[in-house]
């Protein structure tokens, strides 16, 4: 190399004989480092060496045996066989056998290699010179030449109009990807902003509350004090069939609880309960987990995801946890037949908070 002088380490601590030794070695070998070297038992005692050879080859053989056992287990063990192990209990025998044999097959190869390296391979510390990070001057000059030639032959500098229009075209190409992000939420008719969409749920005046899963209307008399019912709007099955998605359910899911009227300290609206029966959104205002961990003695509603806790007896205000606003309350009453119905939709957006939240209600 032309500038090999620059590459030589300037420090005086570097071994002086490095380059001489390097030339004396076969290619692929590295010069010994000038550090103290202790011999291992396997270096001095032939018996220890033999033992190490035996140990390493045993590990490799065991690995091969494990592969054979894996195949035997795969063929021989019925898929529904169950084995009971201490501490672990009853588990599928086939899975356990396949996992143990294949795991050991891989592990024993690694363990054998490590044992081999530690006991038998040379453990003499060596020095490996690292090449200079900088590209050498000749290569740099060639690259610069290529660039200059390309610039001239293509006419990149000669025709500025081509250069500028090309840059414009390339700058605009990513825009369709950004614009199409607008379609991350679908616009139902009459809705123009995400906050409007989130403000509107299936609940409307006179809509019956029906039990989730079984879709039975709920009579006010049917709910005992301390009772909890998971409810959805009566129209939900129709809408779900129409829309083929779960958005309507995710927004409208609600819980109904009953307490004695004198236990209610405050509500989100005057008379939104029916004789101590209160309905709230089931979707946590933090990040939208469905919650119905209602503790009937303390009237606390706990979200299992991040432990946000709401006091349903006190306007569902946040008493603990990361949620920043209360659970929206659904105003309810009963119809002529005594079934619970909604008085209106939620007056606050349900689910997690979002940017436009403040201007969308209040």
């Amino acid at each position, binding site marked *: 190399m032309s500038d090999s002088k620059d590459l030589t380490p300037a420090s005086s601590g570097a071994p002086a004989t490095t380059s001489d030794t390097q030339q004396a070695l076969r290619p692929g070998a590295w010069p010994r480092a000038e550090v103290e070297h202790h011999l291992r038992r396997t270096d001095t005692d032939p018996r220890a060496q033999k033992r190490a050879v035996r140990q390493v080859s045993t590990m490799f053989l065991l690995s091969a045996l494990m592969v054979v056992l894996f195949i035997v287990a795969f063929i021989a063990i019925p898929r529904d066989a169950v084995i009971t192990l201490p501490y672990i209990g009853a588990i599928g025998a086939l899975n356990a056998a396949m996992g143990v044999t294949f795991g050991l097959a891989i592990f024993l190869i690694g363990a054998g290699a490590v044992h081999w390296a530690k006991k038998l391979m040379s453990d003499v510390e060596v020095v490996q010179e690292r090449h200079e990070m900088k590209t050498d001057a000749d290569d740099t000059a060639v690259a610069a030449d290529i660039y200059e030639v390309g610039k001239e032959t293509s006419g990149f500098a000669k025709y500025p109009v081509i250069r500028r229009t090309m840059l414009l075209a390339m700058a605009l190409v990513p825009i369709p990807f950004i614009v199409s992000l607008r379609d991350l939420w679908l616009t139902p008719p009459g809705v123009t902003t995400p906050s409007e969409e989130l403000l509107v749920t299936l609940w409307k005046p006179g809509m019956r509350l029906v039990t989730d899963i079984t879709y039975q209307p709920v009579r006010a008399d049917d709910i005992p004090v301390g009772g909890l019912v998971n409810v959805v709007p009566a129209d939900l099955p129709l809408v779900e069939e129409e829309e083929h998605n779960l958005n309507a359910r995710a927004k409208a899911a609600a819980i109904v609880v009953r307490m004695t009227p004198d236990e209610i300290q405050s509500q989100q609206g005057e008379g939104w309960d029916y004789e101590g029966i209160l309905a709230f959104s089931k979707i946590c205002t933090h990040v939208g987990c469905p919650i119905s961990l209602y503790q009937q003695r303390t009237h606390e509603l706990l979200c299992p995801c991040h*432990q946000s806790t709401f006091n349903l007896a006190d306007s569902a205000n946040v008493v603990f946890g990361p949620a920043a606003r209360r659970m929206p309350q659904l105003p309810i009453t009963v119809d002529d037949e005594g079934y619970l119905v909604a008085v209106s939709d939620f007056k606050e957006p349900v689910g997690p908070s979002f940017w436009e939240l403040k201007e969308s209600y209040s």
Partner: protein
Amino acid sequence: MKTLATHRRHPAAVIVAILVGLLVTGGLYTVVNSATQARSAEQDATQILNGKKLFLEGCSSCHGIAAQGTQNGPTLIGVGSAAVHFQVSTGRMPLANPGAQAPQKPREYSETDIAAMAAYVASLAPGPAIPTAADLDYSDADVAEGGELFRANCSQCHQAAGRGGALSNGKYAPNLMEATPQEIYEAMLTGPQNMPVFGDSTLPREDKQAIIAYVETLRASDDPGGWALGRFGPVTEGLFMWIGALLLVVACAIWIGAKVR
């Protein structure tokens, strides 16, 4: 004896014998049955009386002399026999220490005593009764629907595999694998402690049976995938991998780096 012997082969002998037999059995049955009925009414009264005695000894200090409730315990008027059976047979009552929640522990009363106390509390005011054998017969229940109902109504507190979970301020939903079908039924019916009530009108008997059938299916199913780690899901599994598997990796790294003699 001689007369009997001579008439033994008389054609009417068989009929007479049958008639006599029927009369004796019927007569005996009537006598015994009326005696049983009389005894059963009497028994109910004694049972309630016994229950009252046990209540005054063991429960009244917290629930009040007339079960009207005190500062230390809620009223038992109207809770029904199901609540008494649930609380006492699972050992939750009598309460050992006041705390966030009464834990399950070995029961302190015999089945007879519990029945007596339940009868006494039920006699105070009508309330949910101890489920009958027909209530608890879930053999025809729809397990799949039970699973859906379980996920909608139970899983948020009792966890998707029924293993229970933490609530606020030291309260918790217990592990359902330790509960009998009767206890599960009674808990839904009465809403013990902080559990809400799932009454028969919003969660009818068939739905309760379906839920019990689902819980029993969970209990009976084994873990084909391997060690379930309590079936608590990704949290315990992740913790196990981070602690268990990482320790193994660290041990291997120490072994690789250890000096050889």
